[in-house]
């Protein structure tokens, strides 16, 4: 793990997202799929924590050697919005690579990669490494609409079978990624499953893999205070090896990649809860004592 002042080499708009490529050889050389970096926010802002960003690309060789790419959703909040407004030749204070990466299957061949929205970005890095190791990669990706599906062409390039799901049907099939899982597992004759995204999706993946007895790895994005193990805020409830007990693991150093069979999804409120209720639903709000 290194802390560097990294120059932005280039930025790109990709549908609903913005990608930033940095010159950061110290990090790029070590980065592996599933890992992330932590970017400092500028002085004088009222939001102070670093923002955590999954590594989308990291190049050790070739024309892009020593560069690192990540993708932000500018609409998420002030931090990602600030990052999305950075331009080439500006500098970022970056710590990385952070966290435990995905591991590659030794014997098994057929890999199914599942992700939603911008969380897919890290899976492409993984896909590339898997392909380089002679594995077969299939993918299920998706988003709210065409714009929110991250680089579908790249998914096609890297994998054999790609299933694209959009909530509004503007690309691929209409529906959520989770709806496509059983069919995709079937079609791809998956032997190993990788996933990244919201806890609810990861939980669905975990359930599917348990039923089908498929080994799986999921990358979580639990909120982090630091990213390097200092603060204990990035809790994920995880069983110990023999399943006799459990504790909160730290997503930043014990993860972000976990074996979903060991995650206690029922003890993770964000995974247990359904998606936030639509804002127009008055049922979310019970009238208080002052209510009529």
């Amino acid at each position, binding site marked *: 793990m290194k802390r560097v002042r990294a120059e932005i080499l280039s930025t790109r708009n990709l549908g609903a997202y913005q990608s930033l490529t940095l010159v950061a050889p110290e990090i790029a050389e070590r980065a592996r799929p599933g890992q992330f970096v932590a970017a400092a926010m500028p002085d004088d802002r009222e939001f102070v924590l670093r923002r955590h960003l999954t590594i989308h690309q990291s190049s050790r060789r070739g024309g892009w050697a020593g560069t690192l790419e990540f993708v932000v959703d500018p609409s998420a909040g002030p931090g990602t919005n600030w990052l999305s407004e950075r331009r080439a030749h500006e500098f970022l204070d970056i710590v990385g690579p952070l966290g435990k990466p995905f591991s590659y299957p030794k014997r098994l061949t057929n890999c199914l990669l599942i992700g939603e929205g911008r969380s897919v970005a890290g899976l492409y890095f993984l896909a590339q490494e898997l392909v380089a190791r002679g594995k077969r990669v299939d993918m299920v990706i998706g988003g709210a609409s065409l714009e929110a599906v991250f680089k579908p062409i790249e998914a096609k390039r890297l994998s054999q079978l790609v299933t694209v799901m959009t909530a509004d049907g503007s690309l691929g099939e209409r529906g959520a990624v989770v709806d496509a899982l059983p069919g995709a597992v079937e079609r791809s004759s998956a032997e190993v499953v990788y996933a990244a995204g919201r806890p609810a999706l990861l939980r669905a993946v975990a359930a599917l893999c348990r039923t089908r007895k498929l080994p799986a790895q999921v990358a979580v994005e639990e909120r982090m205070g630091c990213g390097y193990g200092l603060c204990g805020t990035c809790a994920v409830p995880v069983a110990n090896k023999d399943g006799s007990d459990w504790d909160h693991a730290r997503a930043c150093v014990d993860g972000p990649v976990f074996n979903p069979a060991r995650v206690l999804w029922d003890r993770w409120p964000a995974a247990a809860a359904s998606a936030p209720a639509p804002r127009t639903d*008055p049922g979310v*709000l019970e*009238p208080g*004592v*002052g209510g*009529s």
Partner: protein
Amino acid sequence: MSQQKRSLAVDLGGLVLPTPVMIASGCAGTGRELSGLVDLRRVGGVVSRTITVRPRRGSPPPRIAESPSGIVWSTGLQNPGIDAFIGAEMPALAKAGSPLVVSIGGGTLEDYVRLTGALQGRAEVVGIEIHLSGPDEEFERPVLGVHVDRVTEIVGAVARMSLVPVFAKLPGGVDIVPLAIAAARAGATGLTLTGSPPALHVDATTAQVTLAEAGSWLAGPALKPLMLRAVHEVHRALPRMPLIASGGIRSATDAIEALLVGATAVQVGSATMIDPTAPVSIAQGVMKELKARALTSPMHLRGAAAHAVQRGAEEATT
């Protein structure tokens, strides 16, 4: 529900305000200033600066400095005294068009009694807010309202005398629930939560405490999470008590957060200083939110916050 008319009006224990967004004490000028800056008829209510029995010149300059997302202020409660206030400032404030709550402050029980007496029967005054963060001259304590005994005594006296609703503004930066319970038992109509907590501004270059130290207080966005906790805890302890949130509110979202944890109305202080139209735009934002949620009153939001996670820490393992 859709038949019912949607309205921003809120009822604070009998005091009905046109919107839940008031201007906090000390941030509304002396009556004339705001009129040119904001349409006061669209403001829920205005709280006067804190008025004392005798005129006070307040602290020497400087009286303001900044801290991260905060303002450290020390006016020393400059005011013309109750008589001059009633003679000139109060009519001007009332005429401006927004319901007028008068903030009263003192160092002795007698002060509060005299102030309440002086305001008795003044039609312009719809409510009294009791400032309790000053020094206690009788008990020689640095802050009067930090002690249950004094809160009980003073709030009780004002509540018994007053013909209009009485709101106790409890000091910030203290263990608040016991004080809230004391004020409620003593007869307060509602509570303003909270006053600015005690703060200090230091200039490292000149090695000086910048503002009057005994009277420096924190205001501004930095306070929001502290205010939310105070409102939440007091609402849980006193679910029927009307609460007015004060501290760090500058947007409709902030106001809604306060309502969700138990406030009936909110006060906007430093945000009014920065943007005098804030109390109106915040009320508009609340209205938009009511529409989006198909609710007809801000009071339907009150205390509606669900709890994402179970209360408190997990049981220890054994």
